[in-house]
């Protein structure tokens, strides 16, 4: 596999996705700046941050994969000396960078904000676990988008993904090992939270590996 071709494809995708990456970073930073001002601002800022990550996820996958297939850009690329493996690896890498960089930057910035301001440090595990869940949602949507154009499947994943956040955050807050420490300065990485994040990361990796294998076997592109 030519790494040069993969690198060129990744650079092309990042060039196209750049406004989205930049926009999500701006929105995320604004949400973090807003957070320390009051309890309500903290709640609103946190919500905006989650929305920024979800929007980045959906718009990135739609633009980078689904629309590209719909507009036959993929067919055009595969008619040139680009193999399906190179194309798939490039899509995986570019999507991971385009989502991962803003997500990691914003998560780290959020942790630093919690540590550096009077906001309770006890929120750090919840904040990180929520960020991991958003990453899990991104990986599942990316995995589906790699293997299918079917609008019903994609819409179903988006709906479940969006709704899941509304259950995961209250679920984490209500964990007996997490809830009591949220308003304190004590950071508690309980086994429940660590297990939750571990399982989501393993499932995310599994979804991507399965979709990659399925997609690599595809031989019809028109």
């Amino acid at each position, binding site marked *: 596999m030519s790494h*040069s*071709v993969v690198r*060129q494809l990744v650079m*092309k995708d990042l*060039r*196209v996705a750049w406004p989205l990456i930049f926009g999500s970073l701006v929105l995320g930073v604004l949400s973090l700046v807003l957070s320390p001002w009051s309890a309500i601002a903290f709640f609103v800022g946190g919500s905006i941050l989650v929305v920024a990550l979800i929007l980045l996820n959906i718009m990135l996958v739609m633009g980078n994969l689904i629309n590209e297939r719909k*507009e*036959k*850009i993929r*067919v*055009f690329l*595969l*008619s*040139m*000396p*680009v*193999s399906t493996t*190179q194309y798939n690896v490039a899509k995986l890498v570019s999507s991971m960078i385009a989502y991962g960089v803003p997500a990691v930057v914003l998560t780290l910035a959020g942790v630093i904000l919690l540590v550096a301001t009077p906001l309770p440090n006890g929120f750090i595990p919840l904040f990180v676990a929520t960020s991991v869940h958003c990453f899990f949602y991104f990986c599942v949507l990316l995995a589906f988008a790699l293997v299918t154009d079917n609008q019903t499947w994609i819409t179903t994943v988006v709906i479940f993904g969006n709704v899941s956040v509304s259950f995961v955050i209250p679920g984490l807050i209500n964990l007996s090992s997490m809830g009591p420490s949220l308003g304190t300065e004590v950071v508690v990485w309980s086994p429940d939270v660590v297990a939750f994040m571990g399982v989501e990361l393993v499932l995310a990796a599994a979804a991507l590996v399965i979709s990659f294998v399925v997609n690599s076997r595809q*031989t*019809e*592109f*028109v």
Partner: protein
Amino acid sequence: MSGSQPLHALDADAPLAELVGAIKRYGNTVALDGVHLDVRRGEVLALLGPNGAGKSTAISLWLGLLQPDAGEARLMGLSPLDVESRRDVGVMMQEVALEPLLRVRELVDLAASYYPDPLTVDEALALTRTTELGDKRYAKLSGGQKRQAQFAIAVVGRPRLLFLDEPTVGLDVQARETMWRAIRDLVARGSSVVLTTHYLDEAEALANRVVVLAKGRVIASGSVDEIRSVVSRTHISCASALSADDVRRWPSVLEASNADRKLTITATDGESVVRRLLAADHELRHLEVRPAALSEAFTELTKEAA
């Protein structure tokens, strides 16, 4: 032929692309029905046929974008699924969108990066006479300009084989002739071209060989003249005092009409009719004789196939 021969190892006579008994179905519809087709070095092969004849399917099989249900497709002596087979191939497809935010120069440069020995961006733009489009964003181009930009992308890899699927759709007359000149330049440099087009004058102007497809089968194949000769018909026009009614009764005359002192005749044996016209009217002027157009042969052939 071995399944792993690079182009330089192919025999000089070996076809650059081949379909061997290729069958392709979409559900109950047979798109290609046992088609044998090859593309030879240095030729411009025009694939003609009505909509749904199987032209785009044939190209998709050659490019590895579809797989035959039976038979075989080969490109540069290799399986089209082998990326090596596409290193010497350029493609201009129908209904393809390119990244709208990128400039033409960037798109050509990006395409060049996939090939082992590409032209420079400036060379590709100059060859296709699209230098003035280089700095424009793809989204800002007109439909015809987009086709021109796609043509520059198709040639940037120094292709030995170029697939052009309806290349001049949306182009004005001048841009169309410019593209024809560029195609002739490429052929003069040693490239072969597979051209699909609905403009039969385009096939007439560019192709060395024409293959007519209908309902997934090859119904005719040969040079433009050979295909034209399928319809034994000659068109004659002249300024003459002869009456169309009289001429219509001559042997081999299919049609005759008078308008504005101009006599127009369609005949199966043009030479005998011209001889008789000259004998019958010594004052005859402005004589024009032309053979049947490719379009007439195409219509005749596809009508029979239907």
